[in-house]
Structures are given as structure tokens and as C-alpha cells.
């Protein structure tokens, strides 16, 4: 069974992938992120925009960790 932390990690990695994918894959990767955002928001009873706003600093930390030299 997936833990809640896995949900957050997966969401952050999909957002990172969507934002860094080449243009020709952008539609597909953005759809994947949005589907996961909606699934997680529904699972915990939040609106998708609430989840995306709440994770902004987590996303920043994720990018920092990924791109640390």
C-alpha cells in the first residue's frame, strides 16, 4: 500500500518532470501531473488548487535537492 509520503513524492516528481520535459512531450507529462494532482486532492478531500498551492515550498525544496551541484 502506498504511504502518504509516497503520494507527495510522486506529485513532486511528476511536477518536476512536467516542467522539465521537452516541448514535444509537454502535453503528455502535464496531463500525468494533473491526473495525479486530482487523484490526491480527491483522496484527501481537498480542491486541486489547494494542494498545488500548499506544496509550493515543498516543490522548491525538491528542485533544490535535485539540482544541487
Amino acid at each position, binding site marked *: 500500500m502506498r504511504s502518504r509520503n509516497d503520494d507527495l513524492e510522486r506529485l513532486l516528481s511528476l511536477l518536476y518532470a512536467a516542467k522539465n520535459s521537452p*516541448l514535444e512531450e509537454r*502535453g503528455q507529462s502535464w496531463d500525468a501531473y494533473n491526473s495525479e494532482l486530482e487523484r490526491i486532492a480527491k483522496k484527501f478531500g481537498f480542491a486541486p488548487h489547494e494542494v*498545488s*498551492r500548499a*506544496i509550493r515550498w515543498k516543490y522548491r525544496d525538491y528542485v533544490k535537492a535535485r539540482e544541487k551541484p
Partner: protein
Amino acid sequence: MAAHSSVDQPELPTLIHDDYSVDERDWIAVKLLCEEIERELAERRIHLLRRLASFLACLTVFRRVEKHRMLVNSGDASPRDKTFHRAILSGLSGMGEMLLLEFEKHTEIDPVHIGLEFGDVSALVDELRHDLHMWHGDKSMTKERETEVLDALTK
């Protein structure tokens, strides 16, 4: 004939792409670029696909500055960073929406031949809208609600 001189050449510094660091003034550069493209879009003198290419180039520069100032900067983004980020993001989102309207009706050249699919460009514009909400939107969302959302996702 010797292809190379045996004389020792001074060692040239290696240009490492990642060494480039963005400073605060770069928001101004992005803003100027956006204004230029906004003018192009309003005048509609050049072909839609060229306007799209300019928009994409502007977006690339914006994302680069954004990454440095809002994401990987060692400290928190300054109020000035946030102000410029919101203003430019709003402008790009509006420009993207206008371009999408035209792109949807475009029939002269099949954009697939130049590597542009409607769905991909549309996703870029969705992303701008999403980022506006993510970074600057929903002021009605309280700190308590934000904590509640994060707690649910991380506990």
C-alpha cells in the same frame, strides 16, 4: 606541414554553462523581452508561427530566471522577486491564451512540421495558469488550511 604547433598554449578557462548566475537585473531583461513580444502580438505583423516561436523563447528565458530567483536561490525569494515573478507570469499567461486562440484556428501550415503540436503548447499555457495559482493565487487560503493540506500529504 604540422597540424598543431608544439608551442604550449595558455590554458583557456572552461566555460561551464551552470556557472552563469542570474542577478536581480535579469527580471528587467525578461520584462523588456515580454514587452517586445507583447507588441509583436498586438501588431500581428509577423506570422503566427514566428510569434509563437518568440513567445516560447521568452518563456524559456523567464523559466531560467525563475529557477534561479524563486527555486534554487540560496535564500528565500525577495518581495521584489515575487512581484516581478507574478507580473511577468500574468503577462505571459495572457499572451499564451491569445496565441492559443489563433493557433487553434490556424490552417496555413501544419505546425507539426515545425515541431509544434497544439496539445503541447496548450500544456505550456496551462502550466502558466497553474503556476500563477501555485505561487500567487488563492489569497483566501489560510495558513491553517495550508498546514492541514500539507499534514494530510506528509504524515
